[in-house]
């Protein structure tokens, strides 16, 4: 967490008061919550009334997808095939238990949903479309404005999971034309366990959580004022610092890609080199297993990740890479490096120094 967000959160933790109460302490807490709502709205190009606080990105995705499906009473749900599980799994649940017809929109080799793909699939029997703003694994940025416009022409609400995008890309809710947008605290330097669904006026999902009627009756539950205060501070700072951070991360990321390519000539860089999250570098190392690379790099002090994990913790080939047309064996030899505000040139150079030996060793282990 960024120190300012910690300070904002800690300041609230020692106070009492329920934002729903009418007494003085409640009013004071409500003021904090509403100011936080305004801060987030202002930072992301939304109206304060469009911010619905949740307990994180997963809940926001569930609320958007299940809630809009229930509200719209139409059978089809369109998602990109590279969504996070927080979006894919609620949709699959709707298919299994609520007779939804879920269709996964294919992506191109760079991991992008082409506008013509959505155009061909959209119709007035679609309950909602959900396409993430930027992919968490390979970093590809989607043509959100175009996709949202296509959905609107057909009168279909458009949801986007922008959890990865907020701190690194220019995210403007109103200008993007999307109807619902998921954001999350810990991805922007705020606390875990808090997030929000931005909901345009007139977009009213059926609630997933019923209760006290908080958050314009869409999401009941006592608000976590300290987390919300930390969240708002983090969003504000992330947006304020975004341009400078993005420029620095792009430079570091390009240096990392150059260093890895120099050390491992046959490495494959996945995703789109241009329309990409600045802090994301994603590679396939042919002949290696991702978890062997991970282990060897960890021993050298380099932390990275292989992608999705299944319930038993066994690495499965990433559904994102499979959707991009890679085969299972290649997908298993993939690794994601995420750069953030603490990353340095020295970190990147160290990866360049050790990656050659690590890949060589992993290849030998892969063959044994």
């Amino acid at each position, binding site marked *: 967490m960024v120190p300012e967000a910690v300070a904002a959160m800690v300041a609230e933790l020692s106070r009492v008061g329920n934002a729903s109460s009418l007494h003085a302490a409640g009013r004071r807490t409500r003021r904090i919550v509403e100011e936080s709502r305004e801060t987030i709205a202002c930072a992301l190009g939304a109206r304060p009334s469009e911010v619905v606080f949740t307990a994180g990105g997963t809940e926001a995705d569930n609320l958007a997808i299940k809630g809009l499906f229930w509200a719209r009473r139409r059978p089809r749900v369109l998602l990109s095939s590279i969504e996070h599980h927080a979006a894919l799994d609620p949709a699959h649940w709707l298919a299994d238990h609520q007779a939804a017809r879920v269709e996964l929109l294919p992506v191109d080799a760079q991991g992008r949903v082409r506008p013509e793909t959505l155009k061909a699939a959209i119709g007035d029997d679609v309950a909602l479309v959900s396409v993430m703003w930027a992919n968490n694994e390979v970093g590809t940025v989607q043509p959100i404005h175009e996709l949202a416009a296509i959905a609107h022409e057909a009168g279909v609400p458009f949801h986007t999971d922008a959890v990865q995008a907020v701190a690194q890309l220019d995210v403007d809710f109103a200008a993007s034309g999307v109807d619902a947008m998921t954001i999350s605290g810990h991805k922007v330097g705020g606390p875990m366990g808090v997030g929000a669904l931005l909901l345009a006026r007139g977009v009213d999902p059926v609630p997933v959580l019923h209760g006290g009627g908080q958050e314009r009756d869409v999401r009941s539950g006592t608000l976590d004022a300290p987390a919300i205060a930390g969240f708002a501070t983090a969003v504000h700072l992330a947006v304020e610092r975004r341009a400078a951070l993005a420029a620095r991360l792009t430079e570091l990321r390009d240096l990392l890609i150059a260093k890895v390519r120099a050390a491992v000539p046959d490495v494959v860089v996945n995703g789109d080199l241009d329309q990409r999250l600045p802090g994301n570098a994603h590679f396939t190392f042919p002949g290696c297993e991702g*978890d*062997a690379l*991970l*282990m*060897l790099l*960890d*021993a050298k002090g380099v932390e990275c990740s292989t992608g999705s994990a299944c*319930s*038993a*913790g*066994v*690495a499965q080939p990433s559904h994102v890479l499979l959707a991009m047309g890679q085969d299972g064996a290649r997908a298993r030899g993939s690794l994601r490096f995420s750069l953030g505000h603490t990353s340095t040139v020295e970190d990147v150079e160290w990866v360049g120094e050790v990656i050659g030996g690590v890949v060589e*060793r*992993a290849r*030998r*282990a892969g*063959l*044994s």
Partner: protein
Amino acid sequence: MGFKPLRVLAAMSGGVDSAVAAARIAEAGHDVTGVHLALSSNPQSYRTGARGCCTVEDSRDARRAADVIGIPFYIWDMAERFHRDVVEDFVAEYAAGRTPNPCLRCNEKIKFEAVLDRALALGFDAVATGHHARLEDGVLRRSPDEGKDQSYVLGVLTREQLSHAIFPLGDSTKAQVREEAARRGLTVADKPDSHDICFIADGDTRAFLADRLGESEGPIVDALSGKVVGTHGGAFGYTVGQRKGLNIDRPAADGRPRYVLSIEPVSNTVTVGPRAALEVTSIVATKPVWNGPVDTSSGEIGCSVQLRAHGEVYPARVRLGEGDVHITLEAPATGVAPGQGAVLYDGDTVIGSATIASAA
């Protein structure tokens, strides 16, 4: 000079033994990485609950223990290798009328072959497990805890494999291990021991085999009379020495209980007979492995032999043949099943092993 830390890969099943083993080796100053072996790509199909060694719950327990010990932890997907080398082998052995020991096979092919090879390639020096057996200077000996001793299921390892193995629990009893786990704050201290076969979810080996091999009726023949005395649903459901569940229609002429004497897979015949007919003194065993302090140059050795897990130990003479050994027991043994391991001991020291092919 001095202490040279090793890079050790600790295989962590999620049980108390492997957790304490990893903790001890880390505390000794070695550079330890914990690895849980995922043996099924669909854990639900294998044993659930706390008794197995390959469930989601077990992998969580292993991770939790690694966190308490403070070592890095990974999960290695060994499901394909395990299925091929242990599960399919298990089914094929039963289909051939033999009685395999899958734990022994798992040590031989998974823990100290697939895992060890991968560990060495990744730059580790050794694999540590929570087995109850002593290993000093490459020599394998029984655990001081007679009831928990696992030297039998390790007796199949080669000298090369043993040279990269570490068994940190060698000198301890199970009770000591549990007490130590509690002292170290390992939450698995009270976890029940695993029993039976980890990949048979409900413990019903017969149903597991019937699923894979199909039920097929065949005769149960009495060895004394030569007559058919009953029918069975598949010879694979039987093990030499078995008495229960024979479903014999008629009592034997001598009125004595009947035991399975042999299983003939081609004709799907189970032969039964009186207990005396089970007694054997001469065993032929194949694929001998010499892994202990033994001089085989004379072609014959005196030793003791154990013929199944937790089984009795028999004094014996062992004559070396071409790719096999001929074991002559000093006193008769019963229930000697082809497919089981014959592990040879000098006192409490393992000197070698072989796979039982036939007995008479």
